[in-house]
């Protein structure tokens, strides 16, 4: 929801970034305020996923210019774990499997690292167990998944639900969903979208990165940005997504080219 005069959560100015010395982001600008849901769409190779990983602090990406201010502080100075603890959450496009580590233990360690950061007492195994069982409901997950190794042998849909479960526990200020809808059947998509909608509050914000308009039928964005060639070409409301779906990405590129020509 768009709220008048709400706080700026994320401000990205003229961001450029490389991977293996190849420029991927080429001057990206974006502002996200509390309460808002943003969607970034764009063709493959436009830099969408790179942007999400740069925000989360992935070491393979080197920021070469610009700035990212998160709640008034320079996000780029923080280690990945510090970003997480201060409320930045990235739901991975391909969540990793961690054999031998139980999902429950992983969730507890993760949750307690945030509690510790906030100066709160860590939850013991019993209290955490109660909490996690309550949050399972957000993504309609079977408690049996808690005893299994993290994501090991999970289906694509189960992995994405597990990501949203982590989000439900960590209650991030800025949730970045990197192609969370990719590869999901419609039932799984509805469950995941419903989970994300439940977690959206006036004091947090959501940034969805997606290739398909379909997701936006279930999580309705306040702003849609179209990205290509490492920057945002155009921004509009939710109707922009429908226009894109009808006309394809080439339409935006052509329009952009025309603008430049003028």
């Amino acid at each position: 929801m768009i709220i008048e005069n709400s706080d700026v959560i994320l401000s990205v100015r003229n961001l450029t970034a490389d991977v293996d010395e190849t420029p991927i982001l080429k001057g990206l600008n974006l502002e996200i305020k509390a309460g808002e849901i943003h969607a970034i769409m764009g063709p493959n190779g436009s830099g969408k996923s790179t942007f999400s990983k740069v925000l989360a602090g992935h070491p393979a990406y080197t920021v070469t210019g610009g700035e990212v201010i998160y709640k008034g502080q320079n996000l780029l100075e923080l280690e990945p774990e510090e970003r997480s603890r201060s409320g930045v959450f990235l739901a991975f496009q391909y969540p990793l499997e961690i054999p031998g580590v139980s999902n429950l233990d992983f969730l507890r360690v993760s949750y307690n690292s945030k509690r510790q950061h906030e100066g709160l007492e860590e939850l013991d195994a019993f209290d955490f167990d109660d909490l996690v069982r309550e949050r399972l409901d957000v993504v309609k997950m079977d408690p049996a998944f808690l005893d299994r190794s993290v994501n090991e042998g999970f289906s694509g849909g189960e992995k994405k639900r597990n990501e949203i479960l982590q989000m439900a526990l960590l209650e991030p200020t800025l949730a970045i969903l990197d192609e969370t809808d990719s590869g999901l059947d419609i039932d799984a998509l509805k469950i995941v979208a419903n989970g994300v909608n439940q977690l959206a509050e006036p004091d947090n914000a959501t940034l969805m990165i997606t290739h398909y308009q379909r997701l936006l039928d279930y999580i309705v964005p306040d702003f849609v940005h179209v990205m290509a060639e490492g920057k945002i070409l155009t921004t509009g409301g939710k109707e922009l997504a429908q226009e894109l779906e009808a006309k394809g990405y080439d339409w935006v590129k052509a329009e952009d080219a025309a603008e430049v020509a003028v």
Partner: protein
Amino acid sequence: MTVEVNPEAIAPSSSAAQDRQAYLAHLLVQRPSMNGLDEVRDRALSIAQERGLPSHRDEDWRFTDLSALYQTSFTAPTSTALALQDIDAFILAEAPVRLVFVNGFFAPDLSATDNLPAGLSVSTLADVGNLVELGQQPGMTEVFTALNTASFADVALLRIAKNQVIEAPIHLLFLTTGDTPIITSPRGLVVAEANSAATLIEEYVAVKADSYFTNAVTEVCLGQNAQLHHHRIQREAKTAFHIGKTAVSQDRDSRYALTSLSLGGQMSRHNPMVVPTAGQTDTTLNGLTLAVDKQVADTHSDLSFTGPHCTAQQLHKCIVDDRARAVFNGKIFVPKLAQQTNASQLSRNLLLSTKARVDTKPQLEIIADDVKCAHGATVSQLDDEEVFYLQSRGLDHNSACDLLVEGFASEIIDQLPIAEQRQTLLNAVLSQIR
């Protein structure tokens, strides 16, 4: 009893061979005197002398250098009194039956053998005098095994009677203590009669000892349809030498599961050797090796089928850090008689530094033509993407790495029966790699 130790038993072919012959003679001189079993010990002594000590030219010792061992002089073990509080850290409340051996000598004051469950008998040489089952298992002519047979001071004998199920784990604790470098020869013998079932925890530890040589042998004889869960935990002092043999025979329909942890010793070697002497047996061989600093940790397993319809699964994992080195050689022999064998072997290795090294070698010899045998080996470092995933969930870099190593180790450690011990060993692993 006197047996001449004759260093000239075999004409040495080179000065290095002469040195090894002299070194073997030196070790044999350290045999503690004992009464009984003269014939067995004398025969083993001749075998050891005939065989001679190996060098890196022997295929079985190609990757493991014994020269540091051969340069260390050891003295004969002595029976040393320890108080119960000295071994407090090793006592497992959930394993009420405990046999403790100090420097190879039975320590009745440290052991707990009252209130034995029905069907379990535990004894040492003093109780039984002669042991017909001793030395009957496969692999007894290997030189270090023969050296143990020639040199042991006592034997831990566990017998599980026919049709009896022993619920609680039985704890066999071999510990070494003392300031002087000694050679000890711990010896165990487990006889599980037909249809019996038991769980054994066999553990090697040190109490205030650094440089010593443990040359251990445990024999296991499984009767028809018997079952043994065998957990072997080697956590010697980091400066010790450890060579151990686990020699197992399995009669028809028996089930043997070994979980072997190798954590200690500057040089360690474990040789699990299993021979199913009939068909329809099931064998599980799992192992975890941790090698850090300059440790060399070697596992040579040998599983030789002799009958049909047997199953076996083996998972061996190594974690190697610093300049350490791990070796795994997994031999599986499936002769013509062993049709319908279903065996799998997997060697997984985690290298935590650029100087760490692992040599892993599956060695499957399959003559039978109607079998399923799979094997594989992986060697990897910690995955950067996995580390980042955990960091993105709030774990700092070191905690993320720890958790990944913990996950890798847990797959084996979680098979141990006692939660308290699992935690102790997991902590021991993590404290070494930090």
